[in-house]
């Protein structure tokens, strides 16, 4: 499926005196990994792309509808894993239940965990729910902020495989520090700083 390329044009973001990034220009035509040292402003850049932060100057084009894994899991604590994912999908939960359960199994989440409210899941389980929510939601752009946090190496491989499978046909930007994750994805790395 053809999609608009994502363009970041002369983007600058300052918080008071502090400049996070200045005159940033990027064109994303294929899924890519964003890499930068801590504190560079990757999360802020993703928040600008999500429309949650206004840039000091510059613009972004071709973002369209966004789905995301945030820095935090941001799950509704009273809903179970399936309900959290179905929440962002059009139509009824029952339509997707089977598909969601299959994807969770691909991510190594057992069926007993799926019926628990999100507040009872472990950190790694919550991360997988947040990831699947982003992957299944209808979107033009997929923004993933450290989506592998709390996952063991085996789960990381499974998650990377699912991201590669479901991210096709979309603009995908994935911010991570994890070298194993970068290797597992095999995507080009956009290095934002030395």
């Amino acid at each position, binding site marked *: 499926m053809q999609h608009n390329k994502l363009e970041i044009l002369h983007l600058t973001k300052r918080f008071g005196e502090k400049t996070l990034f200045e005159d940033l220009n990027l064109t994303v035509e294929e899924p890519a990994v964003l890499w930068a040292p801590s504190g560079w402003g990757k999360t802020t850049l993703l928040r600008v792309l999500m429309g*949650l932060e206004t840039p000091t100057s510059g613009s972004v084009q071709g973002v369209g509808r966004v789905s995301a894994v*945030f820095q935090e899991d*941001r799950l509704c*604590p009273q809903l179970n894993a399936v309900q959290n994912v179905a*929440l962002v999908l059009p139509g009824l939960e029952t339509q997707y239940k089977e598909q969601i359960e299959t994807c969770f199994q691909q991510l190594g989440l057992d069926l007993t965990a799926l019926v628990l409210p999100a507040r009872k899941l472990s950190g790694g389980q919550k991360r997988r729910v947040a990831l699947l929510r982003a992957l299944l939601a209808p979107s033009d752009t997929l923004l993933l902020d450290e989506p592998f946090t709390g996952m063991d190496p085996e789960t990381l491989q499974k998650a990377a495989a699912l991201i590669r499978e479901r991210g096709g046909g979309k603009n995908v930007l994935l911010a991570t520090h994890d070298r194993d994750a970068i290797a597992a994805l095999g995507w080009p790395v956009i290095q934002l700083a030395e």
Partner: protein
Amino acid sequence: MKQTKKSRLWLAAVVFWLVVWQGAAMAIGQEVFLVSPLQAFGTLVQLLPQAEFWQRVAFSAGHILLGFVLGGVCSVLLAVAAERWLWVDAMLAPVMQLVKATPVASFIILALVWVSGKSLSILISFLMVLPVLYGAVRTGLESADPQLLEMARVFRLPLGRRVKAIWLPAVLPAFRQGCSVALGICWKSGVAAEVIGLPDGSIGDALYRAKITLSTGELFAWTFVIIVLSAAFEKLFLALLDKAVARVLGEEAV
């Protein structure tokens, strides 16, 4: 085990105060000033089989609870509007402050100029409930998780889903607490309004008649009825609300 001990202690405290009351009544020896708990209970037993008793209960409960429901609905609508638009918040702030600070007796006397004695308890319980539930709903709305609200914005969740998944879980616990307080207040203020407005066939009217005929036994019996009604409606309403909260938040949240 702990709960049983607590219940026993509570029961012991009740018995203790009933004994104190009985002792005081016997010491005073004047029924007009203080009836004994046994006499008050006897009067209540005499009232119970009378159709007029139940008509009064139905009249007062109907009016007071209608005021409560109207207050509840208005407080939710106004709180949502105030949360959404700053000017509504600014406009309502002094009104709510005024309603909270004004003595209920002033409202009752003022309101008697505008409405009939029959509708007075509806208006008064409405006015007393409004600021309590308005404040509770505002507190709940303000406690909604901003990170979840951002998530809803990014994923473009429809309003209905935002309400069910984010707003209701935030508001319902605070609303429940507000209802518990408001139900007690609306019974107290509603009956006070009836005592002053004297609508025929109300509990307030019965209380007033008991006072002017120096029937202290009836006065105590009706007071007991008001306390029981207030507690019963509170328990019933909160049980229903808890069911709703459990459905929205999940069984184990309550």
